[in-house]
Structures are given as structure tokens and as C-alpha cells.
């Protein structure tokens, strides 16, 4: 019997014995099965700033897990060795949802990240993990492209504390040609997550000539301000040649600086640059009095003067989860 997966907008029709576009949702005997449920292929302790998440428990470590598989196929994928890997060819550890929080605590982590590939592809494991982790008193962070249908996304967001959503470009053409996906469902998921109280940060990997024009960057910034609010942190990330996009050079520092200036001029309060050491571009300033609140170098927090989530100078509340 043929099955149709209605998890993400791709709506894969899957013949018996075959998998959907994500490689990990398989038609076994007429039933849709998640073959990586409980079997992450990557388990690490990362600084939370690496996700990137700058407004969530700064300076802490986060228990980070991922199974193989992804429902996007970005030609520039930096994690293609696990995201575009067939589960049959992968190695994994057994880590059922009920053990995730135990392991996270063992390593001194206050939160868990579902990351590296896309946690919406291994949806059931992410959802059950989030439920168990929250029951255990820890927090959940998604690192995702948010290419998911609204109903399952709403259910997942009930258990998610923070999400960093990677918007690949503000262009349907880019999504179709580079990622084998579409933009609109992602924008929808972003608005839904924000409306459900999830702390949302956004990232945008700038690829020379493909998504780095003033029009692309300005369009994204305007959309964020109008639909997500100016308090939404935005990270511009440096591209490095990877996977099927080795012919393009790394993003010049000047492009990242230009993007940051456009975003600030658009009225966004918190704009960061990642994958490149730039003095001050990873630090958090008060949007009212402009004083330095959190100084970062790379993924390290050097100084944090926030007092109960407020600027100690002018008492402005800073968007984020700080305790």
C-alpha cells in the first residue's frame, strides 16, 4: 500500500519499501515509519552560542543531538555528511527520548538542542524528546529550517523554549533552485512559533552572488520587523564552500558588515555576525541606551552585565530567556 507523509509541505507519496525525500521516513508494510527514532548519529556538548542562540542562557553549554536525514537538500549544506546520508549507511547510538534529559544532566547541561540536521525530519523523536526533557525541568531548543506543515509545527512548539530558524534566503527562486523547498511555509512557521511564545532567533547564511544583494537582505529585514518584531535577533552567517557549492568563495567580511548595517538601519534591535571574528558584531547592546550588555568573542561570553533580563543602565527589558 502506498502512503503519503503529510508532515512537511513536500507531501511525499511513498511506495512500499521506499523512503520520503528526507530518507528517514519509510513505508514499511503500508505504514509510515521513522527509522531514526531514538538513534542519534551526533551527540555533543556545545556552547549555546554556537547554535547560534544569543538570547538564551548565555554562556551555558547545551546537549546537542541529531539523527541523519533532512527534508531540505541545500547545495551549500555544511553538514551534508549527516544530513544527506542514508540511515542504512550511518552509525548511531541508542538514546531513547526518556534518556535525553538524564544524559544532558550528566554533562551539566540545562538545555537540549535538536540540531545539526533538521529536527523536523525526525519529528516524532524531537517531539517525544521535547516532552520528556521539559518534564525533567530542562529547556528545549530547535535549530531548524522550519519547513513543516502548520499542524505538526504547532504541536511541537508547545514544548519548545527557543528556536533558531535558518532562513536560507528571502526568495522563492533560491529555495526552489538551491534547497529543493519553498519559502512561504517557513515564514508561516516563524509567525506561528512567535505567536505561541517560542523565543525565536533567525539566521541567514550569506552566499556570494546568490542571496547577498541589498534587495534580498533588505526584504528579509523588513519582513522580520513587520511580522516578527524588531526584537527578533538576526544572525548573518559567513558562507564557506561546501558540498555542491565549492566553486564560490567565502563571504567577504565587507558583505557581512553591509548586511548588518542594512538590518540595523531597518530598525532591528539585535543583529549579529557569525562564522567570522568581528569585534562587537557578536555582542549584545541595549536597544535603548546602546550600552554593552553581553560581550562575546566567537562562542565565548566574556562579560554579561544583564540584571534579571534588564539593562542595568536604563532598565529596558531585553528579549530573551536569561534564567
Amino acid at each position, binding site marked *: *500500500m*502506498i*502512503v*503519503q*507523509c*503529510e*508532515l512537511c509541505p513536500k507531501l511525499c*507519496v*511513498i511506495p512500499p519499501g521506499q523512503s520520503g525525500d528526507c530518507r528517514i*521516513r*519509510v513505508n*514499511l508494510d*503500508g*505504514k*509510515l*515509519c*521513522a*527509522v*531514526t*527514532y*531514538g*538513534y542519534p*548519529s*551526533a*551527540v*555533543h*556538548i*556545545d*556552547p549555546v552560542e*554556537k*547554535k547560534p542562540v544569543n538570547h538564551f542562557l548565555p554562556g551555558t553549554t547545551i546537549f*546537542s543531538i*541529531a539523527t*541523519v536525514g533532512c527534508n531540505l537538500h541545500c547545495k551549500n549544506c*555544511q*553538514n551534508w555528511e*549527516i544530513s544527506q546520508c542514508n*540511515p*542504512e*549507511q*550511518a*552509525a*548511531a*547510538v*541508542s*538514546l531513547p527520548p526518556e534518556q535525553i534529559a538524564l*544524559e544532558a544532566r550528566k*554533562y551539566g547541561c540545562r538545555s537540549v*538542542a535538536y*540540531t*545539526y540536521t533538521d529536527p523536523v525530519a525526525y*519529528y*516524532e523523536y524531537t517531539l517525544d524528546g521535547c516532552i520528556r526533557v521539559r518534564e525533567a525541568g530542562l529547556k528545549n531548543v530547535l*535549530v531548524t529550517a522550519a519547513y513543516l*506543515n502548520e*499542524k*505538526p509545527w504547532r504541536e511541537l512548539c508547545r514544548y519548545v523554549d527557543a528556536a533558531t530558524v535558518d532562513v536560507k534566503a528571502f526568495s522563492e527562486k533560491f529555495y526552489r533552485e538551491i534547497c529543493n523547498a519553498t519559502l512561504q511555509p517557513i515564514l508561516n512557521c516563524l509567525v506561528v512559533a512567535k505567536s505561541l511564545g517560542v523565543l525565536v532567533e533567525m539566521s541567514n547564511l550569506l552566499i556570494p552572488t546568490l542571496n547577498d544583494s541589498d534587495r534580498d537582505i533588505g526584504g528579509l529585514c523588513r519582513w522580520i520587523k513587520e511580522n516578527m518584531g524588531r526584537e527578533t535577533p538576526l544572525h548573518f552567517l559567513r558562507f564557506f564552500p561546501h558540498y555542491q557549492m565549492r566553486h564560490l568563495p567565502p563571504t567577504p567580511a565587507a558583505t557581512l558588515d553591509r548586511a548588518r548595517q542594512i538590518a540595523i538601519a531597518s530598525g532591528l534591535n539585535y543583529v549579529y555576525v557569525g562564522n567570522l571574528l568581528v569585534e562587537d558584531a557578536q555582542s549584545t547592546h541595549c536597544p535603548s541606551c546602546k550600552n554593552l550588555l553581553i560581550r562575546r568573542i566567537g562562542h565565548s561570553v566574556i562579560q554579561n552585565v544583564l540584571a534579571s533580563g534588564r539593562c542595568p543602565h536604563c532598565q529596558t527589558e531585553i528579549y530573551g530567556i536569561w534564567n
Partner: protein
Amino acid sequence: MELTRRSFGKLLLGAFCAVLAGAWGLTQRLAPVSFVKALRAKFPGKLRRLDAAAVRQVGKWRG
């Protein structure tokens, strides 16, 4: 044997039912059954032990 109007009608009805049943079965096989959530299944790859030293290392992957 003489084919009466009644037995011809029965034959025609039988053939029609057979075609209908075949078409129904084919539709059931070809029309996809929709799922949002997937069931758990056996991991088809290689299993290894959780290595504490490897876990403590910062992930080499982005994100």
C-alpha cells in the same frame, strides 16, 4: 445449452461486479494512505556505544 435472458442478465451482473471489485482493490493499492506521524521502527544502520569522551567534544557540525 440455451442462454436465456435471465441467465445472460446474471452473467452480465457477475462480470460487472468482478470489474467493480477489481477496480476497488486497485484503487486501494494505488491511492495513498495519509499519515502525519510515523511509527517507530528498527534502525537500519550500524549501532555504536555512546562514547563520553566524544560527547564532551564540541560538535564538528554547524549548528
